[in-house]
């Protein structure tokens, strides 16, 4: 265990604190502009943080993403335009409260619940991660292979309504990961004679292209947004503090659920918010009512869950080096570039860094309260910036982001190519997240798979020989069987229903 004094000394660095405050302001600004997600905020941070020391770099991402997730509530509550997908679940409830002149309740409930969820998940992260890391130290290639497969499976299942399209996206991502030198034999693959591809596809240009540029393309033919109502955040603190106690169960449920969902690879904050919202509505009397109290219960549960999922996502990221969502995928890339290699050995070799990261979680979520209130007040200014001027600036940052990480113009070309590809994929309901996770987890999956195959000389039973590995393998296969079975039943039911309807008509 690390001495608390060492961690506090690291946190007292004025430069680190300045980075945290600046990232918080940046995250709030990006998150509150509709269409710009927390992921985009994180991706656009990379060219700046790449030049910082490891701790401020990671602190910057943690703070900006937490703030952006909360800030997405602001345009959601005031304009019925969720700033980030994570806020979409309770936008209607929050907007309804605003129309009744209770925007302070709607936004305050979101803010306090977000901070509560964030702190709760940070506590769970601090308590569980070291314990899990000790177990992870005994893992071999088999366990890592199955963990990778389980993560990718979850990512595919939760990605969208079509399992086949999710799988297509995942396999495409895995294919992209095979470009460059083969990890076992060192032979070049799919490089088409280009030296730019020998090192593989850069993660950041692909990520910026698929998410940020495709979003800009989609927004390009939309209407310019106009502010419709001004915020009336008169007495947020007074209003909400009274509401916290009656909704404690919703808050706790949301925080716990968010942390668990966030820790599953592939399931991000938006899924956590939707599940928590549905659970608040279905399972509690309070959450099911159409009154103001019901709306507050649902907002608090879902808002706590989406911020808690951020902390949850850091559990697989720090313990196994497996990203839980696209934001932690960026964090992992930045950690590798900075020489902080995520995985169980991080807890042995650099415990002071890992605990400082956990401490930053607490700090960022506490900082959310004063800055969030300030942001709600200053919201009008941010939203008045017209998208016709903002979107080209974002595009310039996309280009610079890709260029400054890779230092080649080839990366800029990749941004355009993957931007168009991401747009076409989303238009055809092919989810993007499995492709990104495939690209990130591909090398780990291939290496562990090939190592095990070579070690066992092709004996597939080796994948089930070890107790932990075999169990995770069995769970993975069970999950697959369950999901495919459910899909088949659902389609048979749908067919029966439609044939019944045909006969009736």
């Amino acid at each position: 265990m690390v001495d608390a004094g060492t961690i506090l000394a690291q946190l007292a660095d004025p430069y680190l604190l300045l980075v945290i405050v600046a990232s918080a302001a940046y995250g709030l600004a990006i998150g509150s502009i509709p269409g710009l997600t927390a992921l985009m905020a994180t991706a656009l941070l990379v060219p700046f943080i790449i030049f910082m020391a490891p701790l401020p770099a990671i602190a910057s991402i943690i703070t900006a993403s937490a703030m952006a997730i909360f800030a997405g509530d602001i345009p959601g509550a005031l304009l019925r335009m969720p700033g980030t997908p994570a806020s979409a679940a309770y936008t209607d409830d929050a907007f309804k409260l605003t129309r009744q002149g209770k925007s302070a309740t709607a936004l305050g409930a979101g803010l306090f619940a977000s901070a509560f969820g964030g702190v709760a998940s940070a506590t769970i992260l601090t308590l569980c991660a070291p314990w899990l890391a000790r177990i992870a130290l005994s893992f071999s290639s088999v366990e890592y292979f199955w963990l990778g497969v389980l993560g990718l499976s979850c990512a595919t299942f939760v990605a969208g309504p079509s399992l086949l399209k999710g799988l297509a996206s995942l396999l495409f991502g895995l294919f992209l990961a095979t470009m460059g030198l083969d990890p076992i034999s060192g032979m070049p693959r799919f490089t088409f004679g280009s030296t730019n591809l020998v090192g593989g596809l850069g993660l950041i240009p692909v990520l910026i292209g698929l998410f940020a540029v495709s979003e800009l393309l989609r927004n390009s033919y939309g209407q310019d947004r106009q502010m419709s109502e001004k915020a009336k955040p008169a007495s947020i603190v007074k209003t909400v503090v009274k509401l916290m106690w009656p909704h404690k169960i919703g808050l706790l449920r949301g925080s716990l659920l968010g942390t668990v969902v966030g820790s599953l690879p592939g399931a991000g904050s938006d899924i956590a918010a939707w599940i928590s919202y549905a659970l608040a509505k279905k399972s509690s009397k309070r959450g099911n009512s159409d009154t103001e109290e019901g709306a507050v219960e649902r907002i608090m549960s879902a808002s706590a869950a989406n911020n808690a999922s951020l902390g949850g996502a850091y559990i697989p990221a720090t313990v196994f080096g497996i990203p839980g969502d696209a934001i932690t995928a960026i964090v992992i890339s930045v950690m590798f570039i900075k020489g902080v290699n995520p995985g169980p050995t991080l807890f042995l070799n650099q415990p002071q860094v890992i605990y400082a990261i956990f401490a930053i979680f607490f700090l960022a979520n506490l900082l959310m309260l004063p800055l969030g209130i300030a942001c709600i007040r200053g919201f009008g200014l941010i939203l008045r910036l017209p998208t016709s001027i903002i979107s080209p600036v974002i595009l310039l940052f996309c280009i610079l982001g890709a260029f400054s990480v890779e230092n080649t113009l080839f990366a800029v070309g990749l941004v355009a190519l993957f931007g168009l590809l991401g747009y076409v994929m989303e238009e055809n309901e092919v989810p993007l997240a499995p492709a990104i996770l495939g690209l990130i987890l591909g090398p780990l999956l291939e290496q562990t798979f090939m190592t095990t195959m070579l070690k066992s000389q092709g004996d597939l039973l080796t994948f089930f020989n070890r107790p932990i590995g075999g169990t995770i393998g069995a769970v993975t296969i069970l999950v697959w069987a369950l999901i495919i079975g459910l899909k088949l039943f659902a389609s048979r039911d749908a067919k029966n229903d439609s044939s019944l309807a045909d006969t009736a008509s």
Partner: protein
Amino acid sequence: MKAHDSIVGLVVAILGGAIALYSQSLVPPRHLNYGPGFFPLLIGIGLVLVGGGLIVQGYVTGRDKPLFYRPRWLENRQLVFRFWIIPIAILFYWLAVTPLGFLATATILLAMIQIANGVRWKLAFAVALITALVVNILFASILHVPLSWGVLTPISGLFIW
């Protein structure tokens, strides 16, 4: 542009087939049973199967749907232009940044998209120039990203601290 599920499946299957075929050209080293083509081969087969599944699913559930669906915004020329200006701008940056330098390229790029979005050209150029200047100073001087100066190399000393 939204395509029919069967078309999506066909594209996925063709991609998978191409990957599987290419992976056959990757010969394993003499001492290894499984070479660099083994994993891509599995991915290729997976894509062919998934593509096949999508073709069948598309045929069963969407027989009455059109093969291609044209969204309404494609009928509006201005909106089509606003869409394509984004990849064109990136391409322009790729081609122009080395000869023209970052400052000039970024100014033209920003102004070009703003004008396409309906911003008055004077305002567009003013915003573009100020933004490009601030970004240039930030990235070149503070973050030390090696941005090209191109034709503006003689005055670059003024902006690099």
